[in-house]
């Protein structure tokens, strides 16, 4: 543990300030609370928002899991985990069940989360209306007035152009029937996991200096139209080549030997767990 720094890197005053913003975010589901985002020892845009939330919340008894794009072992996940454990000494894990705090970039774990867990998502662009309206003071007004035609208009335009909605990740959602929110670049596949989630979900954007939240058991609806319903990515007829799972988010790979497209669980810790369960049998 690196003792040249305070527990969890920040001074206590900074942690309190971030927690205050977090409480406000929980009190107003989906509303982006501005906070005085600190410069972190990792790059702006590399998860500093999520990291600040993690560091402000973490206590000595927490168990931390960090994933990046579904993987515990991705360099960025490892890097963040290392920084937190260096400055706190807390236990880290790859088992989703064992974690009390899960910081993630671009994925929600396949295993349903529980009320004893907090999911922290890293956010690059917190403003769902940004590509419709570049000005921050304008989008702030639109949220205040609940004027979201722009959010639907962007989807409408996609349908006009391409015949279907073409959002990739970060498909906007309506939270608690009030605020339209960017769920962070999680695949559409993960959007429904936010709805009525047992676990508290916090979202942090460090560079853009915003914190927002989906409290437990909150209604989260992906934006769509009556005749063009929201559709998650489809992995129909496909299964993980390792553990055989279906109905999970799969990575598409090319088997170098056979030159065939193969699929495998994106959530690596879920896949391992499945494999081990099979192994025991």
């Amino acid at each position: 543990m690196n003792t040249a720094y305070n527990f969890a890197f920040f001074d206590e005053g900074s942690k309190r300030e971030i927690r205050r913003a977090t409480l406000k975010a929980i009190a107003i589901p989906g509303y982006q609370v501005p906070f005085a985002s600190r410069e972190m020892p990792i790059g702006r845009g590399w998860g500093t928002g999520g990291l600040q939330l993690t560091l402000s919340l973490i206590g000595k008894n927490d168990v931390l899991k960090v994933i990046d794009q579904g993987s515990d072992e991705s360099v960025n996940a490892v890097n963040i985990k290392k920084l937190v454990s260096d400055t706190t000494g807390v236990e880290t894990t790859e088992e989703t069940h064992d974690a009390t705090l899960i910081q993630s970039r671009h994925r929600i774990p396949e295993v349903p989360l529980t009320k004893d867990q907090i999911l922290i998502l890293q956010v690059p662009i917190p403003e769902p209306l940004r590509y419709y309206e570049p000005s921050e003071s304008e989008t702030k007004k639109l949220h205040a007035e609940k004027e979201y035609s722009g959010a639907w208009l962007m989807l409408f335009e996609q349908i006009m152009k391409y015949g279907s909605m073409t959002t990739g990740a970060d498909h906007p959602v309506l939270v608690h029937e009030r605020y339209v929110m960017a769920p962070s670049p999680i695949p559409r596949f993960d959007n429904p996991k936010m709805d009525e989630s047992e676990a508290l979900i916090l979202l942090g954007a460090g560079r853009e200096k915003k914190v927002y939240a989906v409290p437990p058991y909150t209604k989260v609806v992906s934006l769509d139209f009556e005749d063009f319903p929201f559709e998650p990515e489809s992995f129909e007829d496909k299964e993980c080549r390792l553990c055989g799972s279906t109905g999970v988010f799969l990575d598409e790979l090319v088997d170098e030997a056979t030159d065939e497209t193969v699929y495998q669980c994106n959530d690596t810790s879920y896949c391992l767990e499945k494999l081990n369960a099979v192994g025991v049998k």
Partner: protein
Amino acid sequence: MTEFEVPVLSVKNLNKQYGPGCPHCKEGESETLVKNYCQVCGTVYACRDVSFDVFPGEVLGIVGESGSGKSTLMQCLYFDQEVTAGAAFVRSYENGEKNLFQESSQQQRYIRNHIMGKVYQNPLLGLRMNFSSIGNIAEKLIAAGSNHVGMMESRGTELLNKVNIPVHRRKEAPKYFSGGMQQRVQIAKALSNNPPVLLLDEVTTGLDLSVQASVLDLIKSLQRELNISIVLVSHDLGVIRMLADRTLVMLEGKVIEEGLTDQILEDPQHPYTQQLVHSLL
């Protein structure tokens, strides 16, 4: 009272000034004013005590030279600008009992989205130039609560058809259109939510004469077909003569004469109106 006698829109003592005013000009009638401009402090009294009613299915014309306050009046009615004092009531909003200018900006947005339509002289203000034409219409429909792509597309197509935009160009962005076509897209957009009140601000100014004529014809036939109430502002008495049932003449921020359009054209009372009518002949 019969329905015909209840105004759709009623404006009472609307005042709009630019500048703080000073002891010299606050009286309004003081001799320091040159026209509606205070020489001492530079305050401009753009609208002074403007009151009028618009009845169902009526086209009310407002004529005056540039600087007479007529466009400012329109901006105030569509909440593009805040009034300094005064009131406006719309029959279909809260039974016509609430002063629109005192509603919250969220409510004002509701009124704009559901009860009014506006066509600006400058299409840049009324259209999103980079979105498709049909998307522009859908934006207004979404804002008014629509959530069905098929319905919005057919309504949009129908409206574009009405304003003579070829169906195959409906997915093109207005920035690729000529000025006359842009104006027609704006008209279609403004009509999309069947507004009881339509505001037209110098819609033909700057267009070629032949294009002007076709846009005016279009407005006239649409008005007859849909029986909407229109407030029409123009500096061109020719436009007013063609469309307006009743006319207000504005000069230096004040209404100096009002009456049936024919009456004003044949028997103008105020010297300024007389001058205006003579120049038309």
